């Protein structure tokens, strides 16, 4: 680990300028507030989904469309998901597909255009579910959505001690040795990706050698907090101030997955081979320390049989850092890592105690019992915020 300086003086943005935000994120957050009062949201029936998809595929120019075997999927805490089979004139054999659709509000309000765009590109670099179509603003489907090819696999082995909500809290057991190198490689590949040459339509990049990467994130999540506020939580507000006053410079913005952790990679149970890196909805261009800090959060890990805590249920913290640095060539700066540990704990508290609670109170989701279950974990992140700020 090196000891690069935490704060810089040039090209920085005003840490209290709340307008400093990636434009597409601002669009999604403003749309959330604008549509909030149109609820409550009712889970879609199979028939409604079939009608929506038929209209969509007609608009896409497909002919002789048949949609069959519509099946609700479980898992995930934010999107309404259905598997279905599509047959049409140009593909008589049919394909099994997955519809990932926004309910009116979820635990994280994100953009299906960003998810579809980056996942389609990253399919050339690592196993992901292939992107067939996306409807960024729901112009055709009525709700923003992405349609993916169906990928087989599991997120936990069947003897993993029971899968928790959103894939958290299980054990990866005997497959750890096969899974850990692939996990490290997925992180390193994401961070090595040359986003500047990718001509991304739905993403903007923060300036290099500036605190803009950090402030964009603080403004994103603090706007979510204030837009969703149900009950004041002083530690969340204190964390916001700390994050603004300590925003570090990002010398070289990289693609950040945003949610790579246990539960968000799928693998073949027999071989341990990755079949898909999942959930790209929080991807953005930013500081790679954000991904490292995210995956190190305690809630996303597990205790090993020997009592050692395993990052994402895979590796002890020091081993994880060493292997990531070797695979990526990126040196982890402890000061920036600490900052992003606070930011991530803040983000999770905002999701659990802010967005999830607002969606539940407004009845704007298809599975409020999941949101209130996850909301109850908010205090775990508050506790981390206090510990981390004190560590300082």
């Amino acid at each position, binding site marked *: 680990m090196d000891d690069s300086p935490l704060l810089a003086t040039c090209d920085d943005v005003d840490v209290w300028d709340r307008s400093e935000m990636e434009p597409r994120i601002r669009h999604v957050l403003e749309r959330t507030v604008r549509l909030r009062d149109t609820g409550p949201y009712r889970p879609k029936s199979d028939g409604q989904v079939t009608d929506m998809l038929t209209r969509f595929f007609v608009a896409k120019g497909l002919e002789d469309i048949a949609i069959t075997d519509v099946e*609700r999927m479980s898992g995930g805490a934010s999107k309404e998901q259905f598997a279905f089979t599509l047959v049409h004139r140009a593909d008589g054999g049919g394909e099994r597909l997955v519809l990932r659709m926004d309910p009116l509000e979820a635990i994280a309000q994100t953009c299906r255009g960003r998810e579809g765009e980056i996942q389609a590109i990253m399919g050339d670099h690592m196993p992901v579910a292939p992107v067939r179509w996306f409807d960024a603003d729901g112009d055709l489907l009525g709700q923003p959505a992405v349609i993916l090819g169906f990928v087989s696999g599991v997120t936990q082995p069947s003897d993993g001690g029971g899968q928790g909500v959103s894939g958290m809290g299980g054990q990866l057991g005997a497959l750890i040795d096969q899974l850990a190198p692939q996990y490290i490689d997925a992180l390193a590949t994401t961070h090595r990706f040359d986003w500047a040459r990718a001509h991304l339509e739905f993403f903007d990049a923060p300036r290099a050698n500036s605190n803009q990467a950090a402030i964009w994130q603080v403004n994103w999540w603090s706007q979510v907090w204030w837009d969703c506020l149900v009950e004041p939580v002083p530690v969340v507000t204190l964390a916001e101030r700390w994050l603004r006053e300590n925003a570090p410079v990002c010398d070289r913005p990289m693609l950040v997955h945003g949610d790579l952790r246990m539960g968000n990679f799928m693998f073949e149970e027999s071989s341990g081979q990755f079949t898909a890196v999942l959930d790209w909805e929080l991807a953005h261009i930013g500081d790679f320390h954000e991904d490292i800090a995210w995956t190190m959060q305690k809630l996303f890990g597990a205790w090993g049989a020997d009592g050692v805590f395993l990052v994402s249920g895979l590796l002890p913290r020091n081993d994880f850092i060493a292997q990531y640095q070797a695979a990526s060539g990126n040196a982890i700066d402890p000061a920036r890592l600490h900052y992003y540990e606070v930011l991530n704990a803040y983000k999770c508290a905002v999701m659990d105690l802010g967005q999830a609670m607002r969606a539940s109170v407004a009845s704007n989701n298809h599975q409020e019992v999941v949101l209130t279950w996850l909301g109850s974990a908010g205090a775990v992140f508050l506790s981390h915020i*206090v510990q981390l700020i004190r560590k300082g």
Partner: protein
Amino acid sequence: MLPSIDLRIANIVKALEQVVLPALTGRERLAKDQVNLCIGHLQMIAQQWRWAAAFEAGSFHAMIALAEQMLPSVDPGYAEELAQAIASAKAVEGQGLAAVEHAIVALGGLIDRIILGEDGKVALAPAVWEAVLDYGEKQALRERTWFAATGLDPDRQELPSIAAMMTA
């Protein structure tokens, strides 16, 4: 006897576990997940309901104590408003749940404003930082204990039981 809250919760859990869940086909994975979470919520509610009013009152009391700790160190521009808010909050202590929840929003909103200091224009004294962190540490411990039964907290083995916390 009248059916008690505990008895009714136990009856609902049994019905969900032994009748509703087995009736769901393998395709109904989301429905199964949601029924299981409903069972989990009900089992937690069974642990919590006796203490719910006392827990909320304790949270409110802790927030008032935080405001009192902040008072000597806040910027003079906030002092009078904070003193008034503390007095108003104390007048609500002991009242019903709705009044307490409303008062938490009012007092907490002012505390938030002081912490942000008009978006950084007003400094936050080190004593106020420490008071908020101290409050946050204690409150997070209470809330983690309250919801330990979800199994989401990786350090739940260090937490006391709800009854032990509430009677301490």
